[in-house]
């Protein structure tokens, strides 16, 4: 589309502006088609709202307003989701056996980006401007994933347990711990129209909570264990959430 084509498109419905573009319209068949189509659309009328239907809609809406006179701000849901995600992460980290032999500083170095991923994910999952925050949540999750691999979740390079046995145990733990925040996110997201960036952010947040809960009690620090059995389930949870959220009927179609 040339600059003149863009100007013609922006001038639709403004006869004076279009008159100024006549030389371009005479030579550009595409723009002539656009102008003609726009003019023809004026022929379509729309039925007015039936007074009976208007009355019915007004009554239903009034009843809804009377049933919930106070509105909660959107960030209230984000706080609830953060509470559940951190609750799960903290419960996993504090209440289960601690097999991660890495230094405290190193463990904090891995846990901090996971906490950042949870916070940004919760915010992006429920923010009305989720698209912008979705990018932030994805970046935070990638940083946290890199920290998990680089920092390791244990100090047992000579691990001699079963590869699959240990791996499946960790995968199961990530998915299980991520279920409460995932369910909470799905419930809260029904308050708005489906949005892929928001649903993905919710999945990343739930998966990060699972990874945070698992982190202190995994004794296998090799990347060959961490990538398939820590990160893959985390991102699988993130990918599954949009698929589920898309199928749920929303309570509201607000952005």
């Amino acid at each position: 589309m040339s600059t003149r084509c863009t100007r013609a498109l922006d001038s639709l419905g403004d006869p004076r502006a279009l008159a100024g573009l006549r030389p371009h319209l005479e030579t550009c068949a595409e723009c002539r088609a656009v102008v003609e189509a726009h003019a023809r659309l004026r022929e379509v009328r729309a039925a007015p709202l039936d007074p009976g239907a208007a009355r019915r809609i007004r009554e239903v809406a009034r009843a809804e307003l009377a049933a919930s006179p106070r509105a909660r701000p959107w960030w209230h849901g984000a706080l609830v989701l953060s509470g559940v995600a951190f609750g799960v992460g903290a419960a996993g980290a504090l209440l289960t056996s601690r097999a991660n032999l890495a230094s405290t500083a190193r463990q904090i170095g891995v846990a901090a980006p996971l906490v950042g991923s949870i916070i940004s994910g919760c915010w992006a999952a429920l923010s009305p401007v989720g698209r912008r925050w979705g990018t932030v949540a994805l970046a935070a999750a990638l940083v946290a994933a890199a920290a998990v691999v680089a920092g390791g979740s244990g100090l047992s390079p000579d691990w001699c347990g079963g590869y699959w046995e240990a791996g499946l145990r960790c995968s199961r733990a990530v998915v299980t711990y991520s279920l409460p925040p995932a369910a909470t996110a799905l419930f809260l997201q029904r308050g708005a129209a489906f949005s892929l960036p928001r649903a993905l952010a919710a999945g990343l947040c739930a998966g990060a909570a699972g990874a945070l809960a698992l982190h202190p009690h995994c004794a296998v620090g090799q990347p060959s264990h961490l990538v398939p059995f820590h990160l893959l389930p985390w991102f699988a949870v993130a990918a599954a959430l949009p698929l589920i959220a898309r199928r749920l009927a929303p309570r509201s179609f607000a952005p």
Partner: protein
Amino acid sequence: MERLRDGDAHAFETLFDRHAGSLHRFLCRRVDDAALAEDLTQETFLSIIRARGRYLLGRSFRGWLYAIASNAARHHLRAHRREGARLREVAASSRAAAGGEGASVDERAVRDALALLPDAQREVIVLHTYEGMTFAQIADVLGISGVTARVRGHRAYRRLRELLADIEEER
């Protein structure tokens, strides 16, 4: 809107009186079915009430309203598309939609051509032509970039012209 957030019923009445008629006309053209448009108008106002805590102060209320209505229409059209048979039912009922019976041959041709447009293109030109929104406003309503809105609009008008030519040739 600020007053509605605090549960002020009078604020709701004002918003309803101001926007219900134009919103219904928009939805009529968007889904080409007067009965479905009434349901979606109700769905939109219920959404406003249920999600009023999501409204960001300083944002255009009209933009927010049309964003909700567009989401509701898209959701329902997708559900109808999934249901194959239901789609045909909607298409049939659309013939008898808003003013359908008294429509001129030209109006019917335009309405049929509009119905054949891909949904994403159709929503852009309905907002642009009938609601008088600029492409920047449309981008804000649909949560897409201004360039995408403009490209969709350009393609939609061009495709509409082709469809109209085909329909009129068949007649």
